[in-house]
């Protein structure tokens, strides 16, 4: 062999060794479906950002656990001081990964920052829209937080607030997040990978996983193949058709609910009988295990069974085409324009097999006698039709939507979806507005009961929407890990919860 050939072989062998030795014993590789556009803690409710930063780098004031409820995190306790003010006692001995001590100033700054008009923080816009938040520092580890209007669930809302150091800029996103979490943010090679490593000064127990690398692949089959080939350890969110290995693939309720939003103002959808017919015309069970995954649940409300106030006694509308036809005829006889063309709008790539689902729904509706056409649109166009202000001259529309609520409380959903002023609400019903206000203000068992009453009213009396399915997600996990994805995997992935077998 020539010298050049020797060099080539040597470099190829070195590359092979590097490629083969990517998985060390105490490190994991996570393959995400898209690259993170930003690494900003105040936007970590975005699912892919959350899977990297949320509770790994940046911790929240409180923590919502769907199984056990609200838990302490950076705050050890909290109490209601009245008039919309809650007092949070912060954990002592917590430091940021840059060595500075975390105190009430940092929490106050984080609250200001998430509402800063100079940056569009997802958390501020999503959970604190229309709410004024002020804080009063009592001492280094005690802070009063006041919401106007008062928020009885303020401690729960604080489970979304990621705490950043007080020198985090108010007018720009950070590109190297500093947090108090069990991991430090090491490097982001744009377009390729992000690496985290265990934070040696973490206040809590040291995690088993000592480092993590996140890579990005948009194709589900490739993500699944990477875990199968041992190149990655976890692939959250793979497609149904790629989840074919029972030893590695997990299915779990992913907190997403699919439904058809009805705008009640438009005839013939303003007639209750027509809305009931729309519900009775759908053979929901036929979808499960065919177009949609086994384990998909039939929905009666917009939030998953893990939310408080979920009414397990409500029954999904059974498939009853004869009754649906009779209701339509009855409405027609009363002068309701039931032959008006209804546009069924689906969002492309909203979930696996969305097109097949929408085509099946269209066929079921046409079978009953509805005059209906299907339009599949991209997300931007879909948003223009789904959120207010609605387009003029739109005619009657049924809009397919998928709603995520992994936070455990319907308050994160109901105002926006059903209040007369709600950004995506198809309803104008003073009774619903009042029920939402009452449930939002209530606490404890009363709160759960009031949400239950609202779910019942929307499902059986108003027949607000066509509720369809609580969806199932799939993740592939390398067999060397002791980790089971859950409903939380939809929006976060706490590395400290991962163990090795």
């Amino acid at each position, binding site marked *: 062999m020539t010298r050049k050939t020797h060099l080539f072989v040597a470099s*190829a062998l070195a590359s092979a060794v590097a490629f083969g030795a990517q998985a060390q014993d105490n490190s994991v590789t996570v393959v995400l479906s898209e690259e993170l556009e930003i690494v900003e803690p105040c936007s970590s409710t975005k699912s892919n950002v959350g899977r990297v930063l949320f509770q790994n780098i940046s911790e929240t004031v409180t923590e919502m656990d769907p199984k056990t409820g609200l838990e302490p995190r950076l705050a050890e306790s909290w109490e209601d001081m009245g008039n919309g003010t809650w007092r949070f006692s912060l954990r002592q001995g917590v430091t940021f990964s840059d060595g500075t001590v975390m105190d009430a100033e940092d929490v106050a700054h984080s609250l200001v920052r998430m509402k800063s008009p100079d940056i569009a923080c997802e958390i501020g816009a999503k959970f604190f829209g229309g709410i004024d938040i002020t804080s009063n520092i009592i001492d280094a580890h005690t802070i009063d937080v006041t919401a106007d209007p008062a928020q009885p669930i303020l401690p729960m809302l604080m489970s979304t607030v990621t705490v950043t150091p007080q020198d985090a800029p108010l007018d720009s996103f950070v590109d190297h997040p500093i947090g108090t979490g069990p991991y430090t943010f090491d490097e982001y090679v744009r377009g390729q990978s992000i690496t985290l490593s265990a934070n040696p000064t973490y206040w809590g127990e040291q995690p088993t996983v000592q480092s993590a690398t996140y890579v990005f692949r*948009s*194709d589900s089959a*490739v993500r699944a193949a990477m875990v*199968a080939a041992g190149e990655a350890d976890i692939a959250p969110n793979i497609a149904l058709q790629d989840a074919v290995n029972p030893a590695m693939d997990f299915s779990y309720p992913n907190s997403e609910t699919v439904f058809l939003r009805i705008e009640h103002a438009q005839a013939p959808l303003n007639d209750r009988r027509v809305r009931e017919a729309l519900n009775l015309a759908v053979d929901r069970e036929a979808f499960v295990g065919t177009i949609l995954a086994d384990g998909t649940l039939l929905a009666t409300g917009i939030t998953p069974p893990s939310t408080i106030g979920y009414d397990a006694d409500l029954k999904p509308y059974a498939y009853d085409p004869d009754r649906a036809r009779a209701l339509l005829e009855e409405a027609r006889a009363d002068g309701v324009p039931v032959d008006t063309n209804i546009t069924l709008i689906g969002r492309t790539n909203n979930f696996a097999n969305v097109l097949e689902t929408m085509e099946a729904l269209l066929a079921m509706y046409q079978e009953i006698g509805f005059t209906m056409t299907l339009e599949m649109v991209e997300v931007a166009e879909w948003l*223009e039709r789904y959120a207010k202000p609605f387009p003029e001259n739109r005619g009657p529309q049924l809009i397919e939507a998928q709603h995520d609520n992994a936070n455990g409380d319907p308050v994160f959903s109901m105002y*926006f979806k059903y209040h007369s002023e709600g950004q*995506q609400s198809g309803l104008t019903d003073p009774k619903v507005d009042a029920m939402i206000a009452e449930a939002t203000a209530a606490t404890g068992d009363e709160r759960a009961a009031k949400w239950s009453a609202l779910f019942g009213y929307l499902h059986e009396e108003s027949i607000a929407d066509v509720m369809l399915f609580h969806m199932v997600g799939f993740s592939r996990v390398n067999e060397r890990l002791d980790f089971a994805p859950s409903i939380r995997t939809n929006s976060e992935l706490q590395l400290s919860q991962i163990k090795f077998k």
Partner: protein
Amino acid sequence: MLNFLGKRAVASAISLVGLVLLVFFLSRLTGDPTGLYLPLDASEEARNQFREIHGLNDPLIVQFFSYMADLIRFDFGDSIRRSEPAIDVVMRGFAWTLQLTFVTMSLVVVFAVIFGSLAAFNVGGVFDRIATFFSLIGASAPDFWIAIVAIVIFSVKLGWFPTSGTGTVWHWVMPVSVLFIRPFGLILQIVRGAMITALGSAYVKTARAKGIKNRPIIFVHALRNALLPVITVIGDQAAALLNGAVVIESIFGFPGVGKLMIDSILQRDFTVVMAAIMVTAMAIFVMNLLIDILYSILDPRIRY
């Protein structure tokens, strides 16, 4: 030649300005990006703040002149999605695309020219039939399917190559191989056709009569004359790759400009769309210029 280069540069600049105008207004016609970046539940106040931050509240014509004023200073604006300069985002992706295009097209040209020439030398022979068969398959096979099958076989089953990503020489094998197939099939057919014509010409017969061996006849005399149409097709194929091999970039996790452009269009990240199109257009202008120069080198009758 200098006169020609000057004229081409002016024409390219005019085309580029036209492109900027067209893309700026067409991309804005797709609508307001606010809804894509804020949560569905965001208040109108938050939406207005977002529009204000990104200058979307200004009339379109004001936005255009503001953009052009910045562009003159080579400021392409910041990416809405990534909060960093759009040109940095694009150049990072373009560097990968350029490498992928260069490696792939170099291999394609070498192999297509050799195999196409040999196939043309013995038309209807075993080699010609095999080359034609495989090149037709290559030119018509769907690359996304080949890519997925290659990953299953060579990564998951055999463990020979990494499934995707970048970092080692092995990471390049499958993406380059899959990208190679289609232009190789196409260019091989073009080379074969052009070489059949060239090998049947009078000057080749004369060369044979003079006792010149086959290898110089094929690769020196005939090939040079057959290369003009081949170069045109090579240019087309390279331009297509420079625009981004979207499918391959997506499947193999190559952070190139093609996928970036598609994502940016879907996300209405206008500054990145503009920067990506301008950078790609300039690269294609430069490549076309090089092809024109190559024409004149290969065929002395062509003078500018």
